[in-house]
C-alpha cells in the first residue's frame, strides 16, 4: 500500500500541474502563455519567429478589422451577398488576381463556384503592402485553406502594375 502511494501521489501532483497548465489555455483569449519557441509579444499575442506563422497571426488581426464583418469569422461569407473564402478558386488560385481584389475592390456580378453575390466590396488600397500580404496569407491558411504565403513584394508589384 505504501509503495503504491509513493508512486500514485507524485503522479497525481504531476497531473495537477499539467492540467492547470492546459486548463488555463482553454480560457478564451488567454495569450499570456509563452510558448517554448523564440519570439515576441505583439498586441498580447505571442508571435513565434517564423515567417509564415508570423504572417498568419498578423493577417488575422487585419482580417478582424477589415474583412470579418462581411466575410464572417469562419470565412463563410453570406449567401447571395458576400462570397465565402472557403476553398474557393479566388482564394487558392492566382495570387495576383487575389491581390488585385484587395487593391481595387470587387463590384461585378461574377459567379464564384456556382453562386453569385450582390454586395460591393470596396477597394482596400489604403492598407500597406505588408498588411495585404499578411491578410491574404491568413485567408489562404485558415477556413480549411492551405496555400503558399503572399509576400509584400508581390503586393507591391501588383500595385505598381495597376498604377500604370
Amino acid at each position, binding site marked *: 500500500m505504501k509503495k503504491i502511494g509513493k508512486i500514485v501521489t507524485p503522479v497525481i501532483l504531476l497531473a495537477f500541474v499539467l492540467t492547470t497548465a492546459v486548463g488555463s489555455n482553454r480560457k478564451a483569449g488567454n495569450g499570456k502563455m509563452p510558448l517554448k519557441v523564440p519570439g515576441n509579444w505583439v498586441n498580447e499575442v505571442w508571435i513565434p519567429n517564423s515567417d509564415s506563422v508570423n504572417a498568419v497571426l498578423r493577417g488575422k488581426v487585419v482580417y478582424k478589422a477589415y474583412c470579418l464583418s462581411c466575410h464572417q469569422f*469562419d470565412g463563410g461569407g453570406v449567401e447571395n*451577398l458576400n462570397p465565402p473564402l472557403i476553398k474557393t478558386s479566388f482564394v487558392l488560385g492566382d495570387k495576383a488576381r487575389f491581390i488585385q481584389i484587395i487593391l481595387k475592390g470587387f463590384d461585378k456580378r461574377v459567379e464564384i463556384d456556382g453562386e453569385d453575390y450582390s454586395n460591393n466590396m470596396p477597394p482596400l488600397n489604403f492598407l500597406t503592402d505588408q498588411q495585404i500580404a499578411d491578410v491574404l496569407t491568413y485567408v489562404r491558411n485558415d477556413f480549411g485553406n492551405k496555400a503558399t504565403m503572399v509576400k509584400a513584394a508581390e503586393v507591391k508589384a501588383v500595385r505598381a502594375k495597376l498604377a500604370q
Partner: protein
Amino acid sequence: MQGSHFGLLIGIYYSKFNIIYMKSLFQERSFQGRSAGLSLSALAMTVALTLTFSVMASAAPCGVTRQTSHLSATHSTGQFGGHALADTTGLKLPAHFSAIVVADLKAKARHLVVTNKGLIYVKLAKPKAGKGILVLAAQPDGSARVVGGFGNYGGTGIYLKNGYLYASSNNAVYRYQLDAAGKVLQPDQPQTIVTGLVMGRQHETKSIVLDNDGHIYVNIGSPLNSCQTEDRMPGSMGIPGCPLLDSAGGIWQFKADQLNQSYGQGVRYATGLRNVVGLDWNQTNNTLFVMQHGRDQLHDLFPQYYDEKTSSLIPAECMYMLHKGDNAGFPYIYYDQFKKAQMLAPEYGGDGKKEVTGKYIDPIVAFPGHMAPNGLLFYKGTQFPQKYRNGAFIAFHGSWNRTPEKQGGYLVAFVPFKNGKPDGPWEVFADNFAGTDNILSPRQAKYRPCGLAEGPDGSLYVTDDVKGRIYKISYHN
C-alpha cells in the same frame, strides 16, 4: 462522457484510495515516515480535489445540443380530419400552435401565395430546371406536392388578386390569368405589366402587393448601401442629393391591368426607403405597410463615430405605414431605436449624435437592427385566437452584420394590431428556424424564413430560402 464527469470520477476514486492509504499509515511504526506520508497524502488529496473542481469548472459544454423533435414520422389524427403529419420542424411556437413541413423544395423559395382552393405558388430566387414559379397541390396529410412550374426567371414578388397571379423578376412584373380553380391558364404567356425597372447588384428584388383600387405597388430597392460616392468604402461621403432616389429607394405605384408600364406611367408612391422586401396591404384601414432593411456598417465606414457594438445594434429595422408622398428619409437619416430618434447619417454630416426632426416619417414599429425583414403579412383569418386577428406577422431572414454580437433574427415575429395601428409590443411567434441559438455567422443557420402567406383554413405558411422548406403553422385548441 464529458470531461467534467471523468475528472469527478478520478477525484472520487483517488480520494477514496488516499483515505485507505492514510488509514494504513497509522500502522506505520516510524514517526517520521508516518508524518511525512500523512502530509504528502494530505497535500495530494487537496490537489486531487482541486483538480477535480478545476476540470469541472473549465470543462466547456460539448457543443450546443439541438432540440430535435422526438416525434416519429408516423401519422396522428389531425384537427381537420384525415391523417395529419407530426411536427418534425423543431420550431418553437406559442402554446397550442404546431407546425408541419409542407414540402422541401431544394430551391431558393422566396415569397408564396395560397389560393382559396389550397393551391400553392412559390416564387424562386433562381429558376429550378427552367421554372421560376413552382406549383404545389395539397395532399390529404397536410403536406403539398410539386405538380408543375413555369416562368423561367428568378425573383421574389408574387401576389394573387382578382383572378390573376402577379409575379416579379428583378426588373419586371408579370401577371397570369387564373381559371375558376385557381390554375394558371397560359403559364408560358404572361402579360408584362411593368418593365424596365432599375436593377442594381444589391437590393435588386421587386416585391409586390396590390390594393383594392386597381393599383400594384412595387419595391425598387437602392442599389447602394447608403448612397456613398464609393459604395461601402470607409469614409466615403454621400452623393449630394442622392440622385438614385429618382428611380430607386422607394415604392412605385402602377396600374394593375395596364401592359408594359415603366417609370413614365407610374408614380413614386413613397421615397426614402432603402429596400423593402416584406410589404402588405392592411385591409382594415386600406393602407400600405412596409418593412425596411436598414443600412449596414456604420462602424466599418465611420469608426470615428460608431464602435463595433453600437454598429451591431443600430439602425432599427423599421415598419412604416405609408401614404402617397411619404418620405422615410433614406439615405439622409437612419432610425435609432434606443434614442427613438431619426439620426443624421454620417454620409450626410451626421456624427452619431445629430438628430433630425420634422422632415421624414417615423416608423410605427422599430425592431432590433440587421434582422433582415423579408416578409410581412396581415392575418385575415379566424383560425388563430382573437389576439392574432388583423395583426402583423414579420419573417426575419436573419442578420449577417451583428458582429461582435451573436447574429439575430431567423424567426417570425408578431405585432398585435387594433384599428389599423400597432396595439402592443412585438413578440417572437415562431423561432428556431436556424436550428441553433448560437449563430455567429449566417452559414450556421439551417433554415431562414423569407415569405409568408395565409392558407384558406387560416394556417400560416412560411418559406425558407436556404433549402426551400415550406412550413405550415396551425392552431389547435
